[in-house]
Structures are given as structure tokens and as C-alpha cells.
């Protein structure tokens, strides 16, 4: 039996030098402080009388959306174009991503050069934002939605490829077991064992990316890739606020639509 003393055990010291998270958080705090200080933000100007007045006028102008049948017709076409861009882009990206993921996932028989090259390619595709890809592609292919679709496809292929590769690496033990079976080739292992086990995850990621891409597709038009974005930059440039307001509302509706479809589909996948 132990007699209980009145002094509790000593607490650990307040500063734990080995605490990685604490250093990370401290580092982030420093980064945030430096960011605000180095940018000449002048946020006080944001709340100055003139700025508030401009904002007020802006909001007022936006509150009367244009709803003439002619304009709505054009809006509908642009919306469909944007939707199509996001859909086709995501689809192409999923297929390309799958191929790249197979090449880039580390397994028992992946060759180092192919692994390194495909990973580099994925990083390149991922790092360059879709808008930049669109700007670059437009130089080669001219204005229009195709540049936008391909830009989305390229960037998303990088993102999805990386996610798919991580997922299939985590499912790698299936692969190894499969190789012990009678002489199946790596591709067959991938198609018959790894892939089926990660398909729900892959579909989920793809749907989630589609949600993201509908937003991206809306803006690609700003650099000339068609769809709602092109209409937006046109009308905003001409200071036609009521048309701009209708376009913004359509963007929101489109995003809500895709979000809901994606959410419902993902819910059903989980069952």
C-alpha cells in the first residue's frame, strides 16, 4: 500500500524543445507576421470613406441582374460550355492520372528511372496552375474552350495522378501478394488487384476535383478560354454591372449544382 503524498508529480516543462509541432506553429506565426509586414497592404485604405463609397455603389449596381431572354440564352450556352469544359477536363485527367499513377507508384518491380521521370512529370503538371497552362496553350491553339479543357486536364492529371499514386502505394501489399501468384505481369496485377481495391477512393477524389474544376473552368475564360469567364471579363471590362451580376449568379448556381451532384454521388459510393 502506498501512502499518498500531497505533492503531485512535477509537470513537464512548459517549453519542450523536442516538440516539432510547437516549432512548426511558431514558424508559421513568424511567417504570418512577416507576410503582413512586408506587403504594403494599406488595409486602412480599404475602410476609408472613398473605398466604402465605391464598394457601396458596386454592391448597388450588382443588385439588378440582367434577365432579358436574349442574354439568358447566351448565358445558358456559356454555362453549358463551362460545364462541358470541367467535365471533359476532369475525365481526361482521371484517365491520364491513372496511367501516370501506375508508372509513378513505388512497388516491388518499378524501375527507378521511370519512377523518377513520371514523378517529375506529375510535379510539373501539378505545380503549374491551370490558368497558366491555359495562357500557354492559347498561344499554340488560339482562343476558345479547347485550350481551357486541356489546361484543366493537364493540371488535374498532375493532382489526380499524385493522389492515385499515393492511394495505390498504400494498397501495395495486395500487389506483392499478387506477384506471388503464377507469373502475373505488373500491369495485370495493377488492373486486377490494386485498381479494384482503390476505385471507390479514386472516384471520390475525381468527383471532388470536378467540384474544384467547375470553379476553375469559370475563370479560365478570363484569359480567353471561353465559357462564363470570357463573358464575365467582357462585361466587367465594359462596366456592365447588371450583366456581370447575372453571370456571377449563374456561376454560383453552377457550382452549387456540381457540388450537390458530387456530394450525393460520393454519399452513394460510401454505402
Amino acid at each position, binding site marked *: 500500500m502506498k501512502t499518498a503524498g500531497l505533492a503531485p508529480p512535477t509537470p513537464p516543462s512548459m517549453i519542450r524543445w523536442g516538440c516539432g*509541432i510547437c516549432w*512548426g506553429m511558431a514558424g508559421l506565426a513568424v*511567417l*504570418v507576421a*512577416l*507576410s*503582413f509586414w*512586408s*506587403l*504594403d*497592404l*494599406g*488595409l486602412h*485604405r*480599404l475602410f476609408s470613406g472613398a*473605398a466604402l463609397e*465605391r*464598394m457601396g455603389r*458596386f454592391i448597388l449596381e450588382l443588385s439588378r441582374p440582367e434577365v432579358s431572354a436574349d442574354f439568358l440564352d447566351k448565358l445558358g450556352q456559356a454555362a453549358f*460550355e463551362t*460545364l*462541358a*469544359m470541367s*467535365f*471533359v477536363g476532369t475525365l481526361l485527367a482521371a484517365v491520364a492520372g491513372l496511367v501516370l499513377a501506375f508508372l509513378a507508384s513505388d512497388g516491388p518491380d518499378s524501375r527507378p528511372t521511370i519512377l523518377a521521370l513520371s514523378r517529375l512529370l506529375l*510535379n*510539373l503538371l*501539378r*505545380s*503549374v*496552375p491551370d*490558368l*497558366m497552362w491555359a*495562357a*500557354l496553350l492559347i*498561344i*499554340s*491553339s*488560339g482562343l*476558345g*474552350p*479547347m485550350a481551357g*479543357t*486541356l489546361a484543366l486536364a493537364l493540371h488535374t492529371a498532375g493532382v489526380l495522378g499524385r493522389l492515385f499514386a499515393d492511394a495505390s502505394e498504400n494498397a501495395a501489399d495486395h500487389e506483392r501478394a499478387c506477384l506471388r501468384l503464377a507469373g502475373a505481369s505488373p500491369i495485370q496485377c495493377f488492373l486486377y488487384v490494386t485498381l479494384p481495391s482503390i476505385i471507390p477512393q479514386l472516384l471520390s477524389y475525381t468527383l471532388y476535383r470536378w467540384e474544384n474544376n467547375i*470553379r*476553375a473552368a*469559370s*475563370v479560365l475564360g*478570363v*484569359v480567353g478560354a*471561353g465559357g462564363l*469567364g470570357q463573358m*464575365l*471579363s467582357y462585361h466587367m471590362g465594359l462596366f456592365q454591372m447588371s450583366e456581370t451580376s447575372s453571370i*456571377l449568379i449563374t*456561376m*454560383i448556381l453552377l*457550382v*452549387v449544382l456540381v*457540388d450537390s451532384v458530387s456530394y450525393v454521388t460520393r454519399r452513394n459510393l460510401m454505402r
Partner: protein
Amino acid sequence: MPTFYAVEFKPWVFLEPQNLKVTANFLGDFFPPVFQSEFLLLLLKDAWTTIAIATAGMALALVFSVPLSIAASSALSVSSLTGPMHPVGFLVRQSIRWLLIVLRSIPELVWALIFVRVVGLGPAAGVLAIAVTYTGMLGKIYGEILESGDTQTSRAILVGGGGRLQAFSYGLLPQNATELLSYSVYRWECAIRSSAVLGFVGAGGLGQQMDASMKMFNGGEVATILMVLMLLVAMADQISSWMRRAVQ
């Protein structure tokens, strides 16, 4: 499929002779990339601007999204403990959710265009655009994380007579801290890419530089900028995965 038709999907356009020539010239321009020290210094400054815009925007987004997601979370509803949610509580939560949806449905670029009209060109427009969009995004995901986690402890605190914020800090937060942190750091990495893009509309940083270089058809500079961008994203990715592993 009608969608392929709608996007004028004609990849063979790339192979048309005049386009091929333009492309070849453009790609040829990429080599050699520009490596002069004064340009590199400029890019370094631009890279920092890009990071700073992203970080400042995220910081603002955190400040707003955390209280909004707490307010919108049905895991902190006292009335839900023992019956259907109180109608006022339900209305408040739904309205906040709709606000978050509107904030994130409008793409950052559009917000940036709007802010440029209001506060002028410069990093402030970029910071505000990221802050607004990411408030919506973080608010939604934080809400999902809080609700899908284990709410036993926070519900126990509420039933025991504790307040909602107490239930959050002693129940929901410790339960979900790693996931919240992990997602936030991942989003910061995305914010860096967004911030690079916002430069195209005049918010400064690498995007603006790339726009300038492209307009002057200086492929070498564009190539260098792309490489710097890749490095930046790789670095942020590294920090992000290191932090995520540290909290596991």
C-alpha cells in the same frame, strides 16, 4: 458525346502547320531559360510576394472561418442533444452555411477582379480575394471535420452544464486538432498556387511577372518563372507533409 463537341475538342489543331511553327518557336524560346542574377533576384522578390499574399490571405481566412464554422456546427447545438434542433438555431446555422457557399462559389479570380476595382491594383486585392474564398472553403471543411469526428466528449460537456465554446475547446478541438491542422496546411499550399494565379490580374508576385514576360514573348523568362514556381510548390509541399507527419 455532346460535351466533347461543346468544348470544340479538336486536339489536331495543335498539329496544324502554322500553329506548330508558333509552338515550336515558343518552346524554342524556353531554352535557354534566363538565369541572369538581376532577373533571378526579381523573381526571388516576386516569389516572396506570392508566399506573403497566400499566407496573409490564409491568416485572415482562419480568423473568420473558425468562428463561422463553430457557429454553424450542429455538434454544438444544445437543443439537438435531446430532441429536434431549435428553429432559431437551425436558421442561424443554415444562413451561415449559405454565406459560406456563396463565398466559395465565386472563384478567387473573380473576387480579385472585384477587389481590384475597389482597392486598386496591388497585393491587397489578392490577399482579400484569398481571404474571402478560403473563408468559405475552410469554414465548410472545418464544419465537416467537426461533425464527422467523435462528438461524445463535447456532448458530455454540454449535458454537464458547460458552455458551447467550452465544449468546443475541451471536446471538439482536442478530438480533431490533427485533422484540422493537416487540412489547413494542405490548403496553404493551394493558396500559394492561387496567389500565383492572381498575379495575372495585377495582384503582384510571380503571376504578374509571368504575364509581363508572356506579353513580351520572352520564353526564356517564362521558363525560369515556371521552374521557380515548381520549386516553390515543392518546398511548400515538403513543409506541409512534414507538419502533417509531426502531428500524427
